[in-house]
């Protein structure tokens, strides 16, 4: 696998934390000017690998063995002082969370200037402005004097990149650089990285969990599983035919339209914790193709094609049928489809929201008088029928979560009306609607046992019956062992916690579940399990879902209708088919285009800039500062609803 011109050469790198080896025998090369993507789910050791290369491991961890050669230097042998010169010099790094990587009390310009000075570049000010311009920050001279809190997330990530560029790196290590960003901003930052790399002939080590990002960025791909590299391949070969069973299952677990009418393939079980002793293959417990030898001997590297190596006992690629690597059929009731009831005739909708408004006052002065309002939700109307799924899509800060909370009654609306089954509703209706939250770690009280958590609603509403028995039944319903009721949440993985949260919501038998990004904190394979579970529950219990998300692929997979929100208002709504395939609003089009797709084809028609603040929305159409089609009329008045088809409504003066 060794390339003759490799810039970075990693050999048998192992990282130890105590007795465990969370990274073991990782070897790869990166050639100058090449992008190598390290792909893996959380906890697979990809970030530790990057930190080990930078020699920035947390105190508990250390490099146990292996060699890292960068250009002509052995990084493992350098003194800490010399290593500091390399770091931020020839070897730059950017992190996932831009806000915690910048010092909040220094101006951005000063921080970049510091990075420049450290690497012997004294001509500060012009270089700072130059760098900021290079990363596409508008008005760089003024921006250099601003503090991080004055910048948006995307801007901060750009500033971070500028800092990493200050040392003229030959290799840039990017650890999940866009995970914390919205899709449209992610597309901008990925674009920027790609352009910079091409211009500066810089090599890049991209660490990510997102197959879409890999497909759009990488030249070569390395897949990590449980601390080991299991596959290395050129991008084209990898996406055409992934070799390792784990990689193939990752593809199969991705939700999209193709999978719409079927259950997603999942990977049974979970990643073995670091510290497990493996006699054979690390994936054997979860592998559908496992051979007897897999249990006994660690698999060797096999070269399937030049440059495409897989660590697996399987001699050759099995023939692929249909969707890549789907090996599990789906025997689930009537065709095992994601249930979605047909539109009921005549009956009032389960939930009708009309002109919902939620304003947060901005208070100022000693008397704390309201001087203005943040219009988090500004006139949202929705209709949701029993047993159906409506997806509410938008970027962070668009007000979609607030809509969910206002419908549920957790947030008092400032205006508008809600109706459940035709009857007006005010405040909480715990027996009718429940919510599943985003963060599987924050949504369960760590001090209560799982049984108590699930029974909470039963106790609070004093529902009749044997609560213990109901808890057992609920746990079984979400695919957990009833014996788990006695344990505490910290003993469970993210996916299991999300199941517990679903069980808690289902305990009071609601007809409507509001799901606020229930899978965005989960790995792809776990996300597939949860999406399958939601589908099953809908089929079995006739639940309606209001699915709040930013993930277009999930929407495409599971929703029947979609509403797209921008700055507190719904700009386009209709059936999934109509909106995702025939989007008419420029924002929807930009959103769809910005999603990195595995199928390649690149991304186009992006919007520039950041979403404005809802405290001070632009006059006229809120989208006009970023809209490629904006005209004078757009700046003057907010567009009314245009009905394009029976169930496709858009708010734009010039629907394309």
């Amino acid at each position, binding site marked *: 696998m060794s390339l003759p011109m490799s810039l970075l050469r990693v050999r048998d790198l192992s990282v130890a934390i105590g007795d465990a080896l969370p990274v073991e025998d990782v070897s790869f090369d990166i050639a100058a000017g090449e992008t190598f993507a390290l792909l893996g789910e959380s906890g697979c050791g990809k970030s530790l690998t990057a930190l080990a290369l930078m020699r920035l491991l947390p105190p508990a961890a250390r490099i146990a063995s292996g060699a890292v050669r960068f250009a002509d230097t052995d990084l493992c042998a350098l003194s800490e002082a010399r290593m500091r010169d390399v770091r931020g010099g020839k070897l730059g790094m950017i992190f996932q969370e831009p806000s915690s990587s910048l010092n909040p009390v220094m101006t951005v310009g000063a921080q970049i200037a510091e990075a420049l000075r450290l690497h012997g570049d004294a001509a500060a000010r012009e270089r700072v402005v130059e760098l900021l311009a290079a990363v596409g920050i508008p008005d760089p001279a003024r921006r250099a004097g601003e503090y991080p809190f004055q910048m948006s997330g995307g801007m901060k990530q750009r500033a971070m990149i500028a800092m990493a560029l200050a040392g003229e790196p030959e290799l840039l290590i990017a650890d999940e650089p866009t995970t914390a960003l919205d899709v449209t901003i992610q597309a901008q930052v990925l674009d920027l990285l790609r352009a910079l790399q091409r211009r500066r002939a810089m090599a890049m080590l991209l660490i990510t969990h997102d197959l879409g990002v890999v497909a759009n960025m990488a030249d070569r791909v390395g897949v990590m599983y449980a601390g080991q590299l299991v596959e290395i391949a050129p991008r084209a070969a990898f996406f055409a035919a992934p070799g390792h069973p784990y990689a193939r299952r990752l593809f199969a677990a991705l939700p999209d339209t193709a999978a719409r009418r079927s259950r997603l393939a999942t990977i049974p079980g979970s990643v073995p914790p670091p510290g497990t002793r493996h006699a054979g293959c690390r994936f054997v417990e979860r592998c559908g193709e496992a051979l007897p030898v897999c249990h006994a001997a660690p698999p060797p590297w096999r070269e399937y094609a030049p440059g495409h190596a897989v660590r697996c006992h399987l001699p050759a690629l099995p023939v692929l049928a249909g969707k890549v690597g789907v090996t599990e059929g789906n025997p689930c009731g009537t065709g095992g489809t994601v249930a979605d009831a047909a539109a009921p005739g005549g009956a009032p909708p389960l939930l009708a929201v009309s002109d919902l408004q939620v304003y947060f006052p901005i208070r100022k002065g000693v008397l704390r008088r309201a001087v203005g309002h943040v219009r988090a939700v500004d006139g949202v109307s929705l209709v949701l029928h029993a047993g159906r799924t409506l997806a509410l899509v938008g970027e962070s800060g668009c007000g979609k979560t607030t809509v969910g909370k206002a419908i549920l009654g957790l947030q008092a609306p400032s205006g508008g009306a809600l109706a459940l089954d035709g009857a007006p509703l005010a405040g909480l209706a715990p027996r009718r609607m429940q919510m599943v939250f985003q963060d599987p770690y924050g949504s*369960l009280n760590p001090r209560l046992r799982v049984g108590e958590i699930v029974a909470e609603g039963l106790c609070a509403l004093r529902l009749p019956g044997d609560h213990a028995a109901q808890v057992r039944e609920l746990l079984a319903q979400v695919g957990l062992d009833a014996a788990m009721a006695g344990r505490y949440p*910290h003993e469970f993985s993210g996916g299991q916690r999300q199941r517990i949260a679903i069980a*808690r919501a289902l305990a009071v038998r609601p007809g409507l579940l509001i799901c606020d990004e229930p899978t965005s904190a989960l790995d792809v394979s776990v996300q597939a399990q949860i999406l399958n579970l939601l589908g099953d529950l809908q089929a079995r219990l006739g639940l309606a879902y209001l699915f709040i998300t930013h993930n277009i692929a999930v929407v495409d997979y599971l929703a029947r209708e979609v509403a797209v929100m921008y700055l507190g208002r719904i700009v386009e709504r209709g059936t999934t088919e109509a909106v995702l395939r025939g989007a008419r609003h420029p924002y929807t089009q930009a959103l769809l285009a910005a999603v990195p797709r595995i199928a390649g084809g690149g991304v186009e028609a992006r919007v520039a800039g950041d979403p404005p603040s809802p405290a001070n929305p632009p006059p006229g159409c809120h989208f006009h500062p970023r809209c490629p089609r904006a005209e004078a009329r757009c700046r003057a008045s907010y567009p009314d609803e245009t009905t394009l088809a029976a169930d496709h409504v858009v708010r734009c003066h010039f629907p394309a």
Partner: protein
Amino acid sequence: MIKPVLLWSDLLFFLLIAATFAGGWLAARTEHLRLAWRRVGRSRVAMAAATLLAAFLLIGVLDSLHYRERLPGDGENYAVEVRSALDALLTGLRTRQERTYSAPLATHLFAKESLEGDQGRDFPRLKHGGAHLGADTAGHGADLLAKTVQGMGVGVVAWLVLWLGFLPARQAAPHLAWDAVLATLFALCLVAGPVLLLAQGYHVLGTDKVGQDVLYLTLKSVRTGLLIGTLTTLIMLPAAVALGLLAGYAGGWIDDVIQYLYTTLNSIPGVLLIAASVLMMQVVIDTHPDWFATAAERADARLLALCAILGITSWTGLCRLLRGEALKLRELEYVQAARALGVSGARILWRHILPNVMHIVMIAIVMDFSGLVLAEAVLSYIGIGVDPNTVSFGSMINTARMELAREPMVWWSLAAAFAFMFVLVLAANLFADVVRDAFDPRASR
């Protein structure tokens, strides 16, 4: 014949100890608390500090078992002085009074006086200190050395006995840092043995202005320090927790009122508030002598009043901390989920918020302890602390003010009070540090 007397402070002190044991039992049943305490138990520093604190606690408990002695004669008459079990144990120390100052382990008074007859001025012989040596004090040094060595021997033997006594406990709970406990006990025994023997014939820490044994006074101060350190927290805790959580969770005007309350209290200089309250309390006590049967009860009332006043002025810090925490927890998703399920506000506070701030409360209790012991010393020093009849570190330091001005200087009361207080506060601080680390949710599991 004796008649037991239960002072209010004794009652509260015992209640507090009982509550601690009850809390320990509860903690043993709650998993996360048990884990945290186990982390504390594994720390050598914590266990050594806990051993020292236990020794202090033992002194405090002994000093809280009060009684009145029956007077000789036929009637049911009891002495007016209220004594404690500690007094009974230390009868020797208490009764062997000299006329005035004498240095530690001395055989003569500290200052020259005109002797009887016409023998000029010299250091008079002590009545009790070194009395067993007789008139000739030539063997003083040798006697001290012999007693010290003997005492160490006694200490080592006592330690061996303790070592044997701890064997079953060590087998029952092998994960605790018993080696630190035993090492601390060894040091304690090594000091206590010689002190015990020397105290039979000398004033180990000297005597004060009226000839009282300083060692006795110091030991009596321990109870005062412990009471102030613990009862104050007990008094302020319910208010701080309830108001803090309520303000943070309920928000709105409730939050405004509570915030107003504690910012107002906070903006009055603490010492002024305490001085005013203590003086008022004193007036009340003085105008109602009939409320109290004995001087001890009166002193006790003032001690409790001081605890209450310190409590009232010191709850604001914890309250503010808890308000901030509750504000944060209120937004957490499990609280939102509980609200969505229709769980009542009181129940959310009890089930979801309180257990998740318990570590802060626990940390606050142990951290405040040493601060309060020191506060008592400062307040007594400026004369607004405990009753003059109550022996405390503060009052000892207060009298030391004059002693330090003398020439030559009388240093031993101050040194004794300082050394004991230092050990107590240091032990408490070390323990508090470990507790904070163990209960910090960011600490690894």
